[in-house]
């Protein structure tokens, strides 16, 4: 069942809450204002892109130390970034600990070869695949930028700006708006 149209005049707390929710869970804001099909498409696409980034690059796709701009673009993706950032910090600390352990072992035994050490201790093997990690970083960053685009679309709908549906209706010369712009519910 579709929600009734929302106009500028009757956009209430729920509509404004949808913007915050849209940041936290990509696509959920559209679902909340009744744009179910559109919200679902945004949700699946943005979450999927973010997940692909992590699958390709691993957790090191998050917060690249040498490219801080991606940190901010990734943050716009909402909850996946908040969780992944936490896991990335844990991973970085664990690898630092492993490198410290290797440093101590190498100090005790100057002939120690890093290849031999990490082959003998595969569980502490640090990994570094810069090209693949860059690809994952870009995937997660673009997921954040796409969510920003979705948030702007949501804002326009909540505040009663020009939506594609209204533009099409205006072009057809039907349903002329009188100030407030309707945000249609239903199939999105």
């Amino acid at each position: 069942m579709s929600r009734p149209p929302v106009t500028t005049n009757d956009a209430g707390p729920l509509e404004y809450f949808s913007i915050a929710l849209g940041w936290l869970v990509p696509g959920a804001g559209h679902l909340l204002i009744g744009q179910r099909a559109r919200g679902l498409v945004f949700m699946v696409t943005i979450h999927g892109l973010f997940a692909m980034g992590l699958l390709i690059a691993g957790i090191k796709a998050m917060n690249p130390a040498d490219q801080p701009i991606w940190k901010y673009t990734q943050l716009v993706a909402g909850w996946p970034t908040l969780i992944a950032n936490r896991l990335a910090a844990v991973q970085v600390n664990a690898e630092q600990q492993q490198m410290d352990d290797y440093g101590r072992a190498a100090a005790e035994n100057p002939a120690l070869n890093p290849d031999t050490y990490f082959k003998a201790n595969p569980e502490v093997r640090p990994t570094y695949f810069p090209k693949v990690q860059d690809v994952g970083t870009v995937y997660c960053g673009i997921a954040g930028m796409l969510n920003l685009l979705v948030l702007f679309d949501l804002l326009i709908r909540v505040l009663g700006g020009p939506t594609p549906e209204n533009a099409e209706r205006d072009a057809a010369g039907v349903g002329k708006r009188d100030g407030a712009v309707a945000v249609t519910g239903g199939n999105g």
Partner: protein
Amino acid sequence: MMMLGYRPFFDSLELVIPHLSDYWLLTLVPLVVAICIVYKGTKVPAVAELPVAAGKMAVQILIAMALAAVALTAIYLLITRAM
């Protein structure tokens, strides 16, 4: 072959698929498709029009990128041969 100790989403896929980075250009395709879906999702009046609109846009972008690559390669070859 699944590598022992590989943790999906935590470790890089290159641990399982060696030399994955050699094919990084292919990773552009899903990225372009996702961008087109979301961009067109904000533009089309009805979601039913989305697959065609996003598909057209994705093909256009990929063709444009391929043409740009060909043009840049040609310019590069012209310059390096002239030197």
